[in-house]
């Protein structure tokens, strides 16, 4: 089991006491593709960040179990965590525009990560970087390696981010809204690339997104979060038979190209969803 979370609770201090943003989330991830879906503020990103202990210092994290490949995240030293972050679990973020260092060339960025985790000479690192850029299907890796982040497109930037994450051969990938900043055609290409790499290398994937149909298209299992809790968990292929009113509501309010509607149905939030 790569990741094991049981009864995770994350809270933040506010003037009126602690606010619990994640309230008892449990999940297990092996070599599979798991999607976490929810609206903004549902706690989906916090859950993933807690697994890498990447939360702001004022956050209070409690869990019965919070383990990555047997390592207890809550009690691990900072040194142990550094051996996990990046090296064994890669994190792909939403917007390549803000996540790539603007003053380094693409080749230098990828080579830096490779060298950090694998050692070796500068020349070796640059060769490895070109090879990684090829693996993420960049057509002209030598030219791209010489360009700077502002000179490449968003889709290309996201490929570069993925190349950087792959450099240390991680066992797990966490992708937090990896394609929400991209166009529909590019979005499909990037997700297909992630899917291929994950299957080829036998990695585990945690895909976080607000887009329910998109996630179920690319994952094996889907967890739906609402107000800090998991309200429904199902196989991606069974999305059409989802029975929780929140999941159904999310699916129903998406405008459809094939089925015209006079009015879109609106999600009527039931307070009971938050407190069962």
């Amino acid at each position, binding site marked *: 089991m790569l990741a094991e979370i049981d009864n995770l609770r994350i809270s933040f201090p506010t003037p009126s006491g602690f606010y619990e943003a994640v309230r008892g989330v449990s999940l297990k991830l092996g070599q599979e593709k798991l999607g976490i879906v929810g609206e903004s503020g549902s706690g989906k990103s916090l859950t993933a960040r807690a697994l890498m202990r990447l939360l702001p210092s004022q956050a209070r994290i409690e869990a019965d179990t919070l383990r990555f490949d047997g390592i207890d995240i809550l009690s691990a030293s900072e040194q142990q965590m550094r051996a996990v972050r990046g090296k064994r679990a890669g994190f792909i973020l939403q917007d390549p525009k803000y996540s790539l260092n603007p003053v380094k060339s693409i080749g230098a960025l990828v080579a830096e990560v490779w060298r950090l985790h694998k050692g070796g000479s500068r020349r070796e690192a640059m060769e490895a970087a070109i090879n990684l850029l090829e693996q993420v299907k960049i057509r002209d890796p030598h030219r791209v390696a010489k360009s700077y982040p502002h000179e490449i497109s968003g889709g290309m930037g996201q490929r570069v981010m993925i190349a950087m994450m792959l450099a240390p051969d991680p066992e797990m990938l966490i992708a937090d809204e990896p394609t929400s900043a991209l166009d529909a055609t590019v979005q499909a290409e990037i997700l297909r690339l992630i899917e291929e790499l994950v299957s080829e290398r036998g990695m585990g994937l945690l895909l976080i997104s607000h887009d329910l149909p998109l996630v179920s298209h690319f994952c094996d299992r889907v967890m739906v979060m609402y107000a800090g809790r998991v309200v429904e968990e199902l196989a991606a292929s069974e999305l059409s038979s989802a029975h929780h009113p929140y999941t159904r509501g999310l699916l129903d309010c*998406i405008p459809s190209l094939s089925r015209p509607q006079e009015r879109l149905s609106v999600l009527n939030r039931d307070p009971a969803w938050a407190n069962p």
Partner: protein
Amino acid sequence: MIDVENLRVRFGSREAVKGVSFSVGQGDCFGVVGESGSGKSTILRVLAGLYDDWSGKVAFGGEAVGPRRQRAFFRKVQMVFQDPYGSLHPRQTIDRILSELPLVHGMDDIDGRILRALDAVALPRAARFRFPHQLSGGQRQRVAIARALIAEPEVLLLDEPTSALDVSVQAEILNLLADLRRERGLTYLLVSHNLAVVAHLCSHVGVMYGGEMVELTDAATLREGRVSHPHTQELRRLSVELEETGN
């Protein structure tokens, strides 16, 4: 209501819009779809008077407009931007944000106008003295729509009005926009990368690709898939493929 003929926009040596023509009837909604860099937002910004350097003919209600607009133009045409987090002044209350335009145009009964605008977008009147950061994303987009409505415009230019929002909030905003158009006979020009959103709200659709409008069709034809340009077919295929997962 809106007539655009052979519109060309150039940024340095690159031509972003290469001779685009279309027209939108009174009370209609025209959708422009395309990917980033296709020139769809540039067209909208030219219509809003945000760029000076373009050639071609742009007319609203039969009146041709030049790069520089008269003050009266901005009462007739208003714009709603994509990001409700970036388009509202963070240090101004909703009251201050909404009173800006009536003050500039010397309108009377500002108090009544603000309350009516809040009611029109179904915001609680208590929101009037809040700051943008105290509202949710959907509420902020409602404020942005209220700010546009307060001018009592005839045309709304909508630049990806729901792409920064959750799907549940998107549905509420799209319903609101549909209601407002019906009640007030507004004309919309909607720019979006989401084919389903455009087909839902608009009767006619133009597809932009590489600065050109490669296909002009209506929503029903688009839904049936009787589209001819490969780029339109590709966009439609991706959109339908995802939909089928959920059904």
